């Protein structure tokens, strides 16, 4: 019942309060209030950052957070940040050896992504303004709609819509790609009417010449 909702971490700049994912702002505020009351003297007048994870807060929600911190502690709130503001983690191995060249990647640095570590079942759906990663299956009757790419480490049997909003470069990748319907940007394709066997390898769906093409992940990467 009483699961952790926030995490305090000390850094050289001060204190960062991480709001853990999957918890409502309401719970976070009530938990934060209690913790601040308990530990106000410990933090004294440190500088504090609040990391809200992947949440997109409205201005009044930010004000509410700020007022809770101001009311129950003497800390100075310097920023409310999201996942994308977190400093990149530099691996110690890379730093020490100094011999590894940083690759010039052509990829993109995804600002927003959502990782779902379970199976989406019939009637469950996700609409996310970014990349969606599922560690599990997407069952028939379930739906993933993402403005970016969709990666499923499992079987897609439901509906996947990548690049909603018009990004035709978006793609759908799954260990087993067997969706009832596949959509990328404004292009739609559906499963053949006759039952087909589950593919035996990971596949990659993308738009080419206004049509959704499906290729084995290995061929696509090799090309």
């Amino acid at each position, binding site marked *: 019942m009483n699961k952790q909702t926030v995490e305090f971490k000390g850094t050289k700049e001060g204190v960062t309060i991480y709001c853990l994912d999957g918890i409502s702002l309401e719970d976070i505020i009530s938990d934060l209030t209690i913790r601040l009351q308990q530990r106000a003297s410990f933090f004294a007048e440190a500088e504090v950052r609040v990391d809200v994870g992947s949440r997109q807060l409205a201005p009044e929600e930010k004000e509410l957070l700020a007022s809770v911190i101001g009311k129950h502690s003497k800390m100075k709130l310097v920023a409310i940040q999201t996942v994308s503001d977190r400093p990149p983690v530099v691996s110690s191995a890379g730093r020490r050896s100094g011999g590894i060249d940083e690759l010039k990647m052509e990829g993109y640095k995804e600002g927003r992504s959502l990782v779902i570590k*379970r*199976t989406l*079942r*019939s*009637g469950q759906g996700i609409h996310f303004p970014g990349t969606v990663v599922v560690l599990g*299956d997407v*069952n*028939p009757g379930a739906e993933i709609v993402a403005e970016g790419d969709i990666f499923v480490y499992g079987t897609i*049997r439901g509906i996947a819509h990548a690049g909603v909003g018009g990004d035709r470069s978006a793609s759908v990748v799954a260990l087993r790609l067997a969706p009832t319907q596949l959509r990328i940007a404004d292009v739609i394709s559906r499963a053949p009417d006759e039952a087909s066997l589950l593919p035996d390898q990971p596949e990659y769906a993308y738009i080419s010449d206004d049509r959704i093409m499906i290729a084995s992940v290995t061929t696509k990467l090799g090309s």
Partner: protein
Amino acid sequence: MGEVIVITSGKGGVGKTTSVANLGVGLALLGKKVALIDADIGLRNLDVVMGLENRIVYDLVDVVEGRCRSKQALIRDKRYDTLFLLPAAQTRDKNAVTPEQMKVLCSELKEEFDFVLVDCPAGIEQGFRNAIAGADRALIVTTPEVSAVRDADRIIGLLEAAELGDPRLIINRLRPDMVKRGDMMDIEDILEILAIDLIGVIPDDERIIISTNRGEPVVTSENGAMSGQAYRNIVRRVVGEDVPFLELHKNSSIFNKLKKMMGLGG
């Protein structure tokens, strides 16, 4: 302190009520004190399947609305002294009861009974929410049909959302001959989609219909009905025994594969 188990499916007509009746009788045969709650208000059936229709005086709605005590509404089974039924009201609908009232009722009954089995109505609305409200665990009934499996998947998702985790699956009305011909989903296909643990497989058996019409659950039948044996095995698994799965079809490989999958050996 007993345990409240809800038997649910999403889809109608897959065998929830039959399963509740058979598991109830099976548990009573093991000497457990069992209460069956028919949560299908307005479309009650469990009393008919149990052959207790003519003994109903008070019902579930009378209990939650305080017109009688739960003891007065509980009907003792004809044959088994430790088996009781709390029938649904027929003249009301699902909105006559709230999930909170069901929670209170279930916690009251499990003080007294070893097992409280709740027969959930079809659908995912108020009746479903009532039925799962007081449950400690869930058994999901499906048949080897895509529509039933789809609904079972939806139900599993809703149970997860209600934090009623780790449901077990009963596959009902399996026809090994059809599976063998490739005309019916096999157990593996179903488990691959639903990804929950199996607690039993009931073969399709006309004796179920006969026994249902007579109001005498098949679980008691001594005539070697495979379906009765399958229910007896589920009952033993419900009380925590480790029982190997039935070989429904000689020389069939499904069960061997299944056993292998479940680590039971060949």
